[in-house]
C-alpha cells in the first residue's frame, strides 16, 4: 500500500459506512417514535418529580453496574420463567428515560419491572439499608449512607423504623430512589409487544424481588407482606 491519501480515504469510507448504518439509520428509524395511546393514557407515562430525582440517584450510585433493565424475548433465556416481566421490553418503554440504563451485567436481578414485582416501599427501604435482612444470602452492597441513624425517642417519621436504640430514617435520596424503583414497570400492552392474553397486569401476589413467580418457599417472599391487589 502506498500513500497516505489513499489510506485516509479508505478509512474515511469504512468509518462513514459504519456511522451511517449504526447512527444515522437508527436515528431515522427511532427518531420518529413518539408517545402512543396504550393502557390508561399516553405511554410511556411520565414519572413523578420525586421518581425523576430517584432516576438521578439510580444513575449516580451506578446501580447499572450490576442490574439490567431489559426483559429478553420469550423463549430466549429464562427471563419470563423468573417472573422478570410478562412481555419483552421494547424501544417504546424507554422513550422518556435519560439516560437509558439498559445495563449489561446481571450480578443482581433485572429491574425492568421491579415496581410491579415488589410494590412495597417499606421492603425497598429495608433492603437498601441491609439487603441480607430481606434477601438472606444476597451479595448486594448495603446503602446505609442513604439513611440517617439517630437515637430513638420522639415521633417516628413515615417509612422509618427502630433498630435497637436507634431510629433509621431514610434520607430524601432514599425516598427518591424508592419512588423511582416503584415506577419501574413495563406492563402496558403494546402492539409490538402484547401482554399474554391469559395473564393480567397484576403482579403475582407472592413475588419477592429475587423469586420466580409462584414460588412461595423463598425466604424473600416469606417475609413479605402480601402485595396489595391492583
Amino acid at each position, binding site marked *: *500500500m502506498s500513500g497516505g491519501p489513499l489510506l485516509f480515504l479508505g478509512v474515511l469510507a469504512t468509518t462513514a459506512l459504519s456511522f451511517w448504518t449504526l*447512527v444515522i439509520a437508527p436515528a431515522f428509524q427511532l*427518531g420518529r417514535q413518539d408517545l402512543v395511546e396504550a393502557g390508561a393514557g399516553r405511554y410511556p407515562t411520565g414519572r413523578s418529580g420525586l421518581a425523576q430525582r430517584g432516576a438521578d440517584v439510580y444513575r449516580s450510585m451506578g446501580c447499572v453496574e450490576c442490574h439490567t433493565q431489559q426483559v429478553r424475548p420469550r423463549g430466549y433465556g429464562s427471563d419470563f420463567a423468573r417472573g422478570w416481566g410478562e412481555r419483552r421490553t421494547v424501544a417504546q418503554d424507554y422513550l422518556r428515560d435519560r439516560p*437509558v440504563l439498559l445495563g449489561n451485567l446481571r450480578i443482581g436481578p433485572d429491574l425492568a419491572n421491579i415496581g410491579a414485582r415488589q410494590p412495597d416501599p417499606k421492603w425497598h427501604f429495608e433492603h437498601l439499608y441491609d439487603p441480607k435482612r430481606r434477601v438472606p444470602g444476597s451479595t448486594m452492597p448495603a446503602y446505609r449512607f442513604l439513611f440517617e441513624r439517630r437515637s430513638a425517642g420522639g415521633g417516628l417519621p413515615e417509612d422509618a423504623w427502630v433498630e435497637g436504640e436507634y431510629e433509621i430514617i431514610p434520607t430524601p435520596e432514599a425516598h427518591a430512589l424508592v419512588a423511582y424503583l416503584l415506577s419501574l414497570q413495563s406492563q402496558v400492552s403494546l402492539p409490538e409487544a402484547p401482554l399474554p392474553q391469559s395473564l393480567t397486569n397484576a403482579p403475582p401476589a407472592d413475588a419477592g424481588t429475587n423469586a420466580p413467580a409462584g414460588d412461595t418457599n423463598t425466604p*424473600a417472599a416469606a417475609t413479605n407482606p402480601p402485595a396489595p391487589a391492583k
Partner: protein
Amino acid sequence: MNVTPTPSPPEAVSAAPVLERIPASEIDASCRPPLMFYFGSGLVWLFVGTVFWLIASMTFYVPALFADTSWLTVGRVRPAATSAIVYGFAVQTAFGALLWIMCRLGNVRLLFLPALCVAGFIWNLALTAGVLGILAGGSTGFEWFELPKYASAGMFVAYALIAVCAVTNFHLRRDRALFPSQWYLLAALFWFAWTFSAAGLLLHFAPVRGVFQNIVNAWYASTLLDMWLTSVGLAIIFYFLPKLTARPLYSSTLAAFGFWTFAAVAQFAGMARLSAGPVPAWIGSVGVAASGIMVVPLISVAANWYLTLGDRAQALKQSETGPFVWLAAISYVVGGALQIIFGFREVSEITDFTYAELARTQLALHGFVAMALFGGLYYIVPRISQLEWPAPRHVRLHFTLYAAGVAIILLSLLGAGVMQGFRVNKGTVDFVTATKPIAHIAGLSTFGVLLLLAGQVLALKNFFTLCHRASEQTRAYAIDFITGRETVGRSA
C-alpha cells in the same frame, strides 16, 4: 525546527535534495519530554485504577464494607476504575507508543513538543476531574463513557491537539513508504476523533432519545476497545515482531487484506451484544453477522504473525519486550475467538449479561492491549531516556506476575460466567441460590487483580528510579555547565 536536545548540528531538512537518514537515537531523544510524561502518568493511572478495581471486588466478599461511604460504593468505584485504566493508562500510553512508532517508521523527529506536553496536562487534568466526579456521583451511566461532560470535553480538546500534531508529524515523514503499523495507527487516530466526538455530541450535548442512546453507546464502546486500542496493540505487535526476530514481515498483502477487512467489519461487531435488547432487530443481526466475519481478519493477522515468527520464537525471549509482545499476540487471538463465539445467538443467550462478557473485555484490555503497551514501554523508555532500566530482573518479574494475573482473571470470570449463564440466564433456580457459588468463583479474580497490582508496583518503581537518575544526570550537567567544567559524558 530542530528541537532535539542532542548536541548534533541542526540539519537543513527541507533544503537537502536527498534526505539523509536521521539516526534512530536522535529520533528517540526528540520524543523524550511528552513521552516520558505520558508513560509516567499512564503507569500512575493504571495503579490508581487497579486499586479502585480491588476495592470494587472486595465489596463482593464483604458487602457491607463501604456501606457508610457513598464515595466508595461499588457502583461508583467500578466506573472510576474503568475510566482510570482505559483513559488514564491505555489511551494515554497508546498516545506515546503511537507517536514513537510513527516517528521511527517515518524517520522523522518528533515536533510540536510544547503542544504535546500541554495536551498531556489537559488530558490528565480533565481525567482527574472526571474520576473525582464519578466518585462524587457524576457518572453518566454509559458503558466506557462514564466520565462527566466536562471531563469528556477537556479530553477531546487534548486529543484533538495530539492528533493534529501526530498527523502533521506523519505528513512530514522522510521515509514515504508505509508499513502495516502505520495503517493501523493512522486509522486509529481518525476513528477515535470521529467516535469520541459523535458520542459526546449525541450523549452529552444534544442528547438523543430512548434506546438510541444505547445504540450510540454500544457503537462507541466497541470502537474504543475493539478498534482504537486494538489498532494500537496490533501496530505495536506488527512493529516489534519483525524487529525482535530480525525477520521481514511474512506478507504485506496479507496484512493489507487483514487491515481492510478489520476496518470494514470491526465497528459492526460490537452490536452483537444488543441482539436480544429492546432495539430494532436488524441492528443485532448486523452485529451477529459482522462478528462472524471477524474470523477473516483474525486468521489473516494471526497467520501473518505465525509465519513471520517461524522458528525464531526463542529470539523473542532474549529481549525485555519480546515476552510481552508474544503474550499480547496470543491474547489477541484468544480474545478475538471469544468475541466471535459470543456473537452466535445460541451462545449469547447464555453469556449475555454474565461475567463471561467481562472476561472477554478484561482479556482484551489487560491481556492484549496492556501487554502490548508494556512491551512498547519497556523498549521505548530506555531509548528515549538513554538510560538502562535500573532493575532488569523486575521487568521479567512484572511479565510473570501479569501473565499469571491475567490468566487467573480470565479463567475465574469465564468459569463464573458460563455457570451464571446456565444457572441464571437459562435455569430457573431461585436467584440467590443460583448466584451464590458464582460469586465465589468470580471472587477468585481478586487474586489475579492482586498479582497485576504487584506487577504494576515493580513497573512504577523501575520507571521512577529511572526518572530520578535522569534528573540527577541533568542536574550534574547543569552544574558542570554553570561552573564551566567540561565533563560531558560523565555518569551520575
